[in-house]
């Protein structure tokens, strides 16, 4: 009888998943609105029209095919980076070390590109990718093992690993992988040798009439495949289930017989593997060598994109595209308005800050509503039980039955 009543109560409200997705959309739109509004205030203070500025941002991306090509090309690395962050986050861990994992991955990928030059193109590209992945995984393994074995918090250790990675890669470029061929006559000091052409990722943009300057390569399809793989692992495989269990409640997960440490290490390795591919676009589709001071910050931007996409692979792909649109807006902003292009970074910051805050507020709202609903159900059951008692003169079913 209690079951019947509970169903009626739930039907009075919207189904939970509608509420979840609707709530998330509402939160995202609110956040976008807040960011655009606050951005407008800055633009007006600067003496420009927000309408002109925002339309300039959009026209940079959607004005022509090449503009869109830039957006798509920039999205690839962001997708890898955000996926890497999200994988750990699902398991209740924070990998701030994507930046370090990605630059170490790039150093080892560069090593592969410069060492295995005897391989034919497809195999060389494959070994570049494998070494990128291995480098990222190796760098992610350290904080993972330290966390499991010694309890050192991954946030601090990954920050420290970032610092170590920057110095290590600086040394690699100054030492082992330093540019040898001095014949070129230009400044060759701090970078590696140029990669052989066979190591480079082929261009994709020309198939769609996008100029090669956009550097749209096969990295983007790879990133989308990676998003699909992450979705599959997280939603359809045991590891994903265990990760969500550990992330939601480590105590219950342990009680259910899940080895928390093993899950955490696996997640970190997966995260590192994804992080190891972040730099492929820039090095192997664009520059063609590893420059010194290669700290592009994509590892940190990935955190923002992961939040914007709410750690879901689909959300991340769209968030990366949105981020790419904004980044592309820098150029058109400079051409068409007087607002400095740095306005875009502020706008991105406003967006991510308002996303974080509105999601937090929405989550709390939803949580307290669910609590209240649970209390309602309980009240009704109590009422039902007492009616039963009056009617039949015997106690109703124990409440624990359907809980």
């Amino acid at each position, binding site marked *: 009888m209690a079951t019947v009543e509970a169903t009626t109560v739930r039907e009075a409200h919207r189904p939970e998943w509608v509420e979840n997705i609707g709530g998330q959309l509402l939160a995202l739109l609110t956040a976008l609105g807040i960011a655009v509004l606050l951005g407008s205030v800055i633009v007006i203070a600067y003496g420009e029209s927000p309408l002109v500025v925002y339309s300039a941002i959009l026209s940079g991306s959607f004005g022509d095919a090449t503009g869109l090509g830039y957006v798509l090309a920039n999205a690839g690395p962001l997708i890898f980076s955000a996926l890497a962050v999200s994988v750990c986050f699902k398991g209740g861990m*924070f990998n*701030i070390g994507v930046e370090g994992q990605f630059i170490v991955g790039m150093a080892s990928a560069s090593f592969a590109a410069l060492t295995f030059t005897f391989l034919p193109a497809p195999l060389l590209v494959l070994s570049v990718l494998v070494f990128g992945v291995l480098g990222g995984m190796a760098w992610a393994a*350290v904080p993972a093992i*330290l966390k499991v*074995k*010694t*309890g*050192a*918090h991954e*946030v*601090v*250790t990954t*920050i*420290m*690993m*970032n*610092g*170590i990675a*920057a*110095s*290590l890669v*600086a*040394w690699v470029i*100054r*030492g082992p992988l330093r540019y040898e061929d001095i014949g070129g006559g230009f400044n060759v000091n701090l970078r590696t040798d140029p990669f052989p052409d066979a190591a480079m990722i082929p261009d994709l943009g020309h198939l769609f009439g996008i100029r090669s300057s956009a550097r749209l390569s096969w990295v983007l399809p790879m990133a989308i495949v990676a998003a699909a793989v992450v979705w599959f692992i997280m939603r359809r495989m045991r590891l994903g289930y265990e990760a969500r269990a550990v992330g939601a409640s480590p105590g219950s997960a342990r009680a259910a017989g899940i080895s928390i440490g093993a899950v955490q290490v696996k997640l970190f390795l997966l995260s590192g593997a994804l992080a190891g591919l972040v730099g492929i676009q820039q090095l192997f589709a664009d520059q063609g060598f590893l420059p010194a001071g290669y700290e592009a*910050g994509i590892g*940190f*931007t990935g*955190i*923002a994109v992961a*939040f914007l996409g709410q750690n879901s692979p689909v959300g991340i792909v769209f968030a990366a595209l949105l981020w790419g649109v904004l980044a592309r807006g820098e150029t058109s902003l400079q051409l068409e308005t007087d607002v*400095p*292009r*740095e*306005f*875009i*970074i*502020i706008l*991105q*910051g406003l967006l*991510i*800050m308002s996303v*974080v*805050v509105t999601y*937090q*507020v929405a989550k*709390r709202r939803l949580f307290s509503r669910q609590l209240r609903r649970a209390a309602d159900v309980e009240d009704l059951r109590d009422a039902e039980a007492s009616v039963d008692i009056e009617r039949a003169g015997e106690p109703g079913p124990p409440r624990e039955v359907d809980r």
Partner: protein
Amino acid sequence: MPLGDIGAAIGIALTYFTIIYLTGLGGLYSERSGIVNIGLEGMMIVGTVTGSWGTAELTPELGLPWGPLAGILIGAAAGAIFASIHALATVTFKVDQIVSGVVINLVAVGVARFLSTIAFGQATQSDSGQPHMDSIDIPLLSSLPWGLGRAFDGISPMVVVAFLMVIPVWYSLYRTRWGLRLRSCGENPEAARSLGVRVSPYRYEAVLLSGALAGMAGAFLAVEVNLSWNEGQTQGLGFIALAALILSNWNPIRLMGAAFIFGFAQAIPLRLADAPIIGAIPPEFIRMTPYVVTIIVLAGFVGKVRPPAAAGRAYEGSTGV
């Protein structure tokens, strides 16, 4: 190896000490109140550009040393204003403190460039050779024999200020009611609340102080060390300050030692590159020592550190205060 090189290295280490120590004290206030602050680097960055701006604007009016001093204070104020975003997000909206700190660091780069285009007409640097305070010689110490005195010769007055900061910070944290309450908010906010301490105001004050100190450190770096603003000049020193804070076990006196050791590690490649043994190590490996040491300590291989018990956790007060 002449001892004079060691003296010069110590001199540089003192400069780095000032930056790391001031920033670390900022982190100390914040984390002792229960708010983890990995946005120190970003707060420093905002301090660099605003400090440099303030100095350039105010020195013609105020002269030396008041112009640079005012610039450094402006950097501190800007750091505090910027930190109020972190306070608002973490204390009022209870956003995850790590997330907010990461966002702070991301946004800081954009804010700095934006301010720089307004202040200097270019995004990534100011004019070089801006005014700075006259350097001073520390009496007695600067006449140490064998060249060791070089360490205390011609240093910025701010280095002395940083050293003296330990007194007010230690006193405020351990000898005042405010400090006791602030620390109790970082250890057990529920217990503090039950004794009538309003947690949120303490955490706000701590985070704002944290931004002010980090901003001051950044302004010192731009105004007194580099004599100009340049993008990327903080070089991750905010994270090294975080490492020093951990090594110090969240104690302002031990933080002095940690900041000096890490500062010295920065100075070795600059002044002791020809020294025996040390000189043979690639400078990159010396630069990574602060991070390696911190990981070793955190993992419990050497020594033991314990962060404030409630650091990182939002306070879920029923009335929200």
